[in-house]
């Protein structure tokens, strides 16, 4: 608890993120660039996976990982705010939402484009994987809309936290949807109980690309959190000035 409080200090966060965010931007961009180079130029095409179209994997799969991980992070931050009322946890949840929505939209869009030449369709309305990820996008958008509709910051944090925590149930549903229901989507090939089923030549660029996306996402979350802290400070100063006038 003491350690949590130490990390939840906005002054300490601003000092830490001042050097950590640029480092994450640089490392994230480098790893994404390396993954792109490997994915488009270096790795051999896999005829079993439809030829060159499998190269979409190096952007679609990291986007899917980030979509699920970001929602999980938002739910954990919301839980932390709900129990301990740390302002920084609420700021983190608020910062994650638009970025999580962006990566989820990227996952859906690239999945749809990949689906057309592979399955012969852009979209399948009764597919559990596609629909659960679409629901995830609506959860992110709903979270933002709900917060924006509240007339105070406290109410926005509370309503948003409840939605984020309840919506967290959708994340395991996405992960196991291909095992529990019939789906056009292939089974998991990286995160499985028996370990990765993918050949190393594809696995390493995919993992590095996933790490790059994660670092870039982390840098963007830190930047948005810094912006929110500055915005809240400005609002407090404005209120103090008005009270003094």
């Amino acid at each position, binding site marked *: 608890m003491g350690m949590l409080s130490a990390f939840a200090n906005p002054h300490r966060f601003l000092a830490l993120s001042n050097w950590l965010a640029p480092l994450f931007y640089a490392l994230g961009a480098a790893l994404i660039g390396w993954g*792109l180079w490997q994915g*488009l*130029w270096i790795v051999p*095409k896999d005829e079993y996976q*439809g*030829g*060159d*179209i499998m*190269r*979409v994997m190096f*952007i*679609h799969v990291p*986007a899917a990982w980030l979509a699920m991980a970001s929602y999980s992070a938002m739910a954990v931050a919301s839980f932390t705010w709900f129990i301990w009322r740390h302002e920084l946890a609420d700021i983190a949840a608020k910062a994650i939402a*638009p*970025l999580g929505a*962006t*990566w989820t*939209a*990227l996952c859906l*869009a*690239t999945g749809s*484009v*990949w689906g*057309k*030449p592979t399955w012969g369709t852009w979209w399948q309305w009764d597919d559990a994987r596609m629909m659960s990820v679409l629901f995830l996008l609506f959860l992110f958008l709903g979270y933002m809309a709900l917060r924006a509709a509240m007339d105070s910051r406290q109410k926005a944090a509370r309503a948003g936290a409840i939605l984020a925590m309840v919506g967290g149930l959708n994340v395991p549903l996405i992960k196991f949807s291909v095992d529990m229901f019939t789906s056009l989507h292939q089974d998991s090939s990286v995160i499985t109980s028996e370990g990765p089923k993918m050949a190393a030549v594809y696995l390493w660029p995919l993992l590095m690309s996933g790490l790059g996306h994660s670092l*870039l996402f982390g840098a*963007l979350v830190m*930047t*948005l959190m*810094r*912006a*929110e802290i*500055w*915005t809240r*400070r*400005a609002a407090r*100063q*404005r209120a*103090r*000035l008005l009270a*003094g*006038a």
Partner: protein
Amino acid sequence: MIDFLPHLDKNAAYIWACYGLGLVLIGGAVIGVVLKARAAKSALGRMNVSDEDAS
């Protein structure tokens, strides 16, 4: 076709569309976030100046 680009099979348009979407969405997110942070920082700076003027 430009020589430095990878030589992809008949699905090249789908592959480029996916990476184009990535560039637009992620690039847009980076630009939007950086602009928002800059605006928030300068707004706080303006408030600090007003605060100093008032005191």
